[in-house]
């Protein structure tokens, strides 16, 4: 019975984490972004392992606080939140569902695997999330946040964010 209870609670914690959205991009969860790495749940150890994205990301603290509140308000006060910087977060960990949500929201998801760095300046085609044109132009490597670059579409003339590959 104990093992079943533990399993149910662990599943519950994952469900709660899936409801925690990124503060900057409120349509995607911290699980879909690959920020939540693991939930270790047993009598001996109760831990949620998270990983920060960019070194200076100002949302890191907020995400941790939101997870803490979510856990506490559902009775999981004894679950520790551990922030692990290694292995380093990579956009490869963004789920397929997450990438779809980013695109629907108007942010183009990373188009290549993180191993390939030559993705600015015409080496990779970034298509406009609104009109699908490939006639897009990089405006700045750093957009509204450190993780995004700013592009503009030369057909529909709208600007848009591109989630950089890292």
């Amino acid at each position: 019975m104990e093992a079943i209870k533990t399993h149910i609670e662990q599943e519950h914690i994952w469900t709660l984490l899936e409801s925690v959205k990124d503060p900057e991009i409120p349509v995607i969860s911290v699980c879909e972004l690959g920020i939540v790495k693991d939930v270790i749940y047993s009598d001996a150890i109760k831990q949620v392992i998270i990983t920060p994205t960019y070194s200076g990301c100002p949302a890191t603290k907020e995400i941790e606080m939101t997870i803490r509140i979510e856990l506490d308000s559902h009775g999981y006060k004894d679950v520790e939140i551990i922030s692990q910087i290694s292995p380093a977060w990579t956009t490869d960990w963004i789920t397929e569902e997450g990438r779809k949500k980013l695109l629907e929201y108007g942010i183009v998801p990373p188009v290549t695997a993180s191993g390939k760095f030559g993705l600015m300046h015409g080496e990779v085609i970034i298509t406009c999330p609104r009109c699908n044109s490939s006639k897009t132009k990089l405006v700045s490597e750093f957009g509204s946040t450190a993780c995004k670059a700013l592009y503009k579409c030369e057909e529909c003339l709208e600007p848009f964010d591109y989630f950089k590959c890292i």
Partner: protein
Amino acid sequence: MQTNQVLIDTVLRIADNALIHGHRISEWCSKGPEMEIDIALTNIALDHVGRSRYLYQYAATLIGNTDEDQLAYLRDAWDFKNILLVEQANGDFANTIVKNYFIDSFHVPFFLGLQSSADKQLAGIAEKSSKEVKYHQTFSRDWMRRLGQGTELSHSKLQEAVDHLWPFSGEMIVADDVDAVAIGQQLIPDINGIGVYWKAEVQALMQEIGIIISENAWMQSGGKKGIHTEQLGLVLAEMQFIQRAYPNSQW
């Protein structure tokens, strides 16, 4: 427990470079020549300051009886171990770009090498930083090209900036005695080896954009040992003001 002073100094050197450089670039906030550049520079600054936090948190555990905030806000200039290059005033946009380009071109091979550090914490921090500094270098290198191959005015301002900052490049790419021990302990990669690579990269770019590099061999130094230019005093006066005027104040 035996404290490894070389490890502490090494961590602080990398941390102080990150904080002081990050702080200097953040001074462009609301003053960028274009909005996109303003946003780019402040985001780059965030990356550096973020790295400094990981390093100060680690240094605090090694030193004991202190924390990241005390290390950042309560040390005086002679205790900072950043290289002189990063404390220099931003000056005009060309000067900032050259400063950034010099340090970014050092950071790329440095953090790549640091991923193999015998110290697991440093290796972990290097893994994150390595990816970020590649984007920094793309930004600064592209601006070197735009300014160098832009107008006569942008080219001459860039040349002036390179002339001004060149004497600060040596301290960055030459290992001192503390670096040598750290390299021996495999805490950091071979600085001198990185220096060879750095010179090749920089000379190739300068040739491409028609910028002349001074033949003077004399280089400024002292920062790593806490002997700083007057610039650091100005940085700390602004950066540390609130903590010193209102001790223990919290957000």
